[in-house]
């Protein structure tokens, strides 16, 4: 019986592509890597030509990460070296997705993950004990409960550390010796208490720059990482394409039988892009809201409107609903953001509704919901 998941891991979702790339991979591989760096790049950035599978079929390798190909290349080279990779950026810029893609392509598994929170403790990062076994047999390997870091080191695979800056600084620092000496000391195991990392082990951390200052990383730990800043997508056309792809995929998964409207996707992409950059396409300067204006947020606004239309209204998506969802998404933290959104409607949207008309006119009419 086919098992369904809400969100299957990357290595399951793209099994076919990974297998095909492995079968055709002739590039040099760092030890313990499933794919060569070039094949990892192709997996993430896509290929212009189809790739043959083991059973002779041709499959297309789709581009999965948009915006900055150079960044992906740098990430791969970092992971082939001795330093960890730290992805930083605004929320919703696909840092986690990129780290999953990298882990799945390099190690064949993307689920070896530590989730950083304010409550993360050192034993969650290193190892803990099965206390029943510990009492029965004493401190033996059998009683040790390995952490994702432990697993990564012993198997020679990537360990992902999500939201590292949410973890207290002294806990983060327990990574320092692991990253510099590539060894984990387990004093309880005495002579057998040294775990040396196998080749292929590395760490991908992610950190949200909105949390900056919450638990700033120590400079000693920073030195063990190469940093990559993942920026929001700059190209409106690309952003529109991402919105359409993501909403389309989510709608298909949830069996929502409504098509994704290109014009609505464009309208949202432009709104988010302009509010994020603080300037319209005609050069009008706009005050940027303090809320996160990521593509992921735009996808969420669109998908919410689509679901609403599917389950409650049968006549199709309404721009009024979309505007209300937009207000809810933008005006979360401060009332000032509502004023900024109003100003955007009164200048840019107004001008465009007069020049372009159509959907933009409807959008401008829906400004009554900006309250």
């Amino acid at each position, binding site marked *: 019986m086919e098992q369904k998941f809400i969100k299957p891991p990357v290595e399951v979702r793209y099994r076919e592509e990974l297998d095909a790339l492995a079968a055709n991979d002739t590039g040099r591989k760092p030890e313990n890597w499933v794919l060569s*760096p070039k094949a990892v790049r192709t997996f993430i950035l896509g290929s212009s030509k189809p790739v043959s599978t083991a059973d002779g079929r041709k499959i297309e390798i789709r581009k999965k990460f948009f915006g900055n190909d150079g960044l992906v*290349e*740098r990430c*791969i080279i970092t992971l082939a*070296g001795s330093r960890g990779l730290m992805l*930083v950026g605004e929320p919703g810029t696909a840092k986690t997705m990129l780290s999953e893609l990298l882990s799945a392509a390099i190690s064949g598994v993307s689920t070896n993950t530590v989730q950083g929170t304010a409550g993360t403790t050192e034993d969650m990062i290193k190892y803990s004990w099965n206390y029943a076994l510990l009492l029965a047999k004493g401190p033996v390997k059998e009683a040790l409960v390995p952490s994702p870091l432990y697993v990564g080191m012993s198997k020679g695979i990537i360990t992902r550390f999500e939201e590292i800056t949410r973890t207290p600084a002294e806990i983060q620092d327990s990574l320092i010796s692991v990253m510099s000496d590539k060894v984990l000391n387990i004093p309880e195991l005495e002579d057998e208490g040294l775990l040396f990392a196998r080749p292929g082990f590395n760490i991908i951390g992610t950190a949200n720059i909105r949390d900056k200052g919450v638990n700033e990383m120590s*400079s000693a730990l*920073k*030195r063990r990482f190469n*940093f990559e800043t993942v920026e929001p997508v700059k190209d409106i056309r690309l952003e529109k394409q991402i919105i359409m792809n993501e909403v389309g995929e989510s709608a298909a998964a949830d069996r929502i039988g409504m098509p994704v409207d290109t014009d609505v996707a464009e309208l949202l992409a432009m709104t988010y892009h302009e509010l994020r950059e603080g300037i319209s396409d005609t050069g009008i300067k706009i005050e940027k809201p303090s809320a996160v204006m990521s593509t992921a947020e735009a996808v969420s606004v669109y998908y919410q409107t689509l679901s609403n239309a599917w389950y409650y209204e049968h006549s199709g998506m309404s721009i009024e609903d979309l505007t209300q969802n937009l207000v809810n998404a933008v005006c979360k933290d401060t009332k000032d953001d509502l004023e900024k959104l109003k100003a955007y409607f009164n200048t840019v949207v107004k001008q465009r509704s007069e020049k372009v008309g159509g959907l933009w006119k409807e959008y401008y009419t829906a400004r009554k919901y900006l309250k």
Partner: protein
Amino acid sequence: MEGILHSPEIPEMIPFDYSQRILYYPVRHHSPGCSFHLYRVMEQYRPDCILVEGPQNADKLIPVLTDKGTVPPVAFYYFYKDSAKYINDEEGEYKCYYPFLNTSPEYNALCFASENGIACGFIDLPYGDILINTADEKGLREKKDISSYSDEHYLAESRYINALCRKTGMRSFEEFWEKYFEIDALHITTEEYIRRMYYDCLITRKNTPIEEMMADGCLVRESFMAENILKKSEMYKKILVVTGGFHSYGLYQIIEGKVRPQKIRLHSFSDKVQDVYAMSYSFEAADALSGYSSGMQNPGFYDRVWKNIIDRKEINKAYENALLDTLLDCAKACAKDKLLITMSDISAAVTMYQGLAAMREKRSAGLYELYDSVGTCFIKGEKNGSSDLPLRLLSRSATGSDIGKLCDSAEKVPIIKNFEELSKKYKLKTESVIEQKIELELFAKPMHREISRLFYQMSFLDCNFAKRIKGADIINNSDRSRIREQWAYKRTAETDSALIDSSAYGGTVEEACTVLSIRKLRDVQKCSNAAKLYVECFLMGIDTTEKFSDRMENIIISDGDFFSIGQGIYYFNMLERLAELYKRDEHNSEYFLKKCFYKAVSMLPDMINVTEERSEECIRICRLLYSLVSGSLLSDEAELLKESFVSMTKKADPEPSVYGAVLGLLYGSDSNYKKEISSAVRAYLSGSKEIQKQGAAFLRGLFSTARDIVLIGDEFVKITDSLIKGFEMEDFMEVLPELRLAFSYFSPYETDRIARSAAELHNGDAERLQKEMNVNEDVYAAGILLEKDILKEMRWGSD
């Protein structure tokens, strides 16, 4: 991938073999790859004449350029004055630069010719004729801050090349060029290199509409160049033609009779109308010109590559060495700026660029991999404007800081010439060895205003030429009432050397100041600094209308410092008022003033909680904002400002003096606020001792903006009296300075009135209160002595 730059039919379009009588060598300006193969071609072909693309009227400067004493970067500075109105109905002055670097193929071709006694020369139309044959807003007539003769926009903007970049995974044309024409150049044969160049340039040419080539004068220039080549071919047997790759095919077609040349009408101009000078140049200026698609960018880095090829003869390691040197330079510069880069960072960066080069299938890493590796390995944290110092320092190192030198026989640099002309025009005694003084009546005599502007310009360029002794200091807000300026000036060797240094920025003093101020503005982040620079430009008489607008607006928008915005308001407001007096047509200061005003008003509510140290400054800005809405320019915004003031008063834990000042301003616009002020003072009175002390600060703020409140009726005198009575002696002594400051806002007459009211409250005699008792001379002398002793004791104590 290499197949991308191959096509079976392309090589046949322009034959390249050493048996040809005319051999076309295609170049890109400042390309070490082109220069590398050019040397091989010159060695093998052994031409008896080398013809180079460049305005023919610069032939006279070839001996200066190729002189052993001349060290690149240098440039030719062309000018043309269209007094005969050939170009359009308005008389215009045109100028452009033609830079030569060590890596420039044109420079190397001319040096080779000079060293080997080979005839050489430039073959393009003179500068004025190029302009006359160019349509408005095209080619050399495009409106730019600085114009470059060596324009390569065809190549850099070609849709075909852009498509090729995308296909090959390169992020820009420059990266594409580096991979296939610079790094590869050191590993492939000359024939293969030229085949690639032809392919690139020919496809670009085939995709360029003929109308475009007509409009920017390209076809006329090629016809003239071809005519010159044909003339020389009657005198020489082997001619090497070194031109931009885009023109090689055009020249070949005309010379082979496949295309009819355009008709050319040459004009004859005197040296006053059209001329060219050689001048020392800088890598920085050459790099700025490259921004206009005029040759390769990052001259400092490619100069390193070139020196590895030529001086160290390490062809295979040229990039490796240049990358490492530039990386180390960057790390050292970071350390100087207190950003520690460890050996581990450096080694990670090296691993990174090598790994990236392998992944990108490059024969060696290049500058773009270096940028990638520094961005990843040197920046610890988010990459943004405040953390990208390593990248900025790398960019500086890649640009280079070398300044060229002309041989002794070279003619005078244009900027010096311009300075001398101006000095003559204004009858300045610049030849004298004694310091001269001059008094300028700024508002009465236009020429005096111009002299003042020149002095300000020279000061801006750090020429140590003129110093203002007396006169209004607008920037520091002192002596503003003076209507005359007195300056002392003297020309020294330092003046000339500073001007030559500035020559890279322009051929005239004003142009150099303009370019320099634009550069300075680019580095400025704070509105206060940007506005100060704007004032400097105002004093220098530089037109900032178009050049500053965008950047200035961005600075105002992104500056989150209320006090910096406040300083901006002060400067723009002042310029707005002085514009007419200084005869300046100032449109922008009004616009920026409004921008700053709105920004400051939006930030005001939070300013109620400023620290005590900044309260005085905050009050000053509040008063300035209030005075703006009282004037005509922003009178419509009075309500907006009032709203902000009201929201300030609603916030918790206000800074007392700012709170008092804001209430005072609100009282100024609406006398009903008197009640609110009374209740605020009473609240301070009824508070704890600490709160009572804050009452003194509150009064200081209040009196600074609404001192009349005390003079109307006696309510405030009574309240103040209650406040003072409430203090213990010790606390009173503590707040006394604050109270003294508060009453300093009143005129002596007003103080007298207040004293009388206060005296009446205590049934005292106001006269007695006002008049200090006479002090006996002996007591005074004893007091002085005592003070001396105390000071002595305190100094001893501090030792």
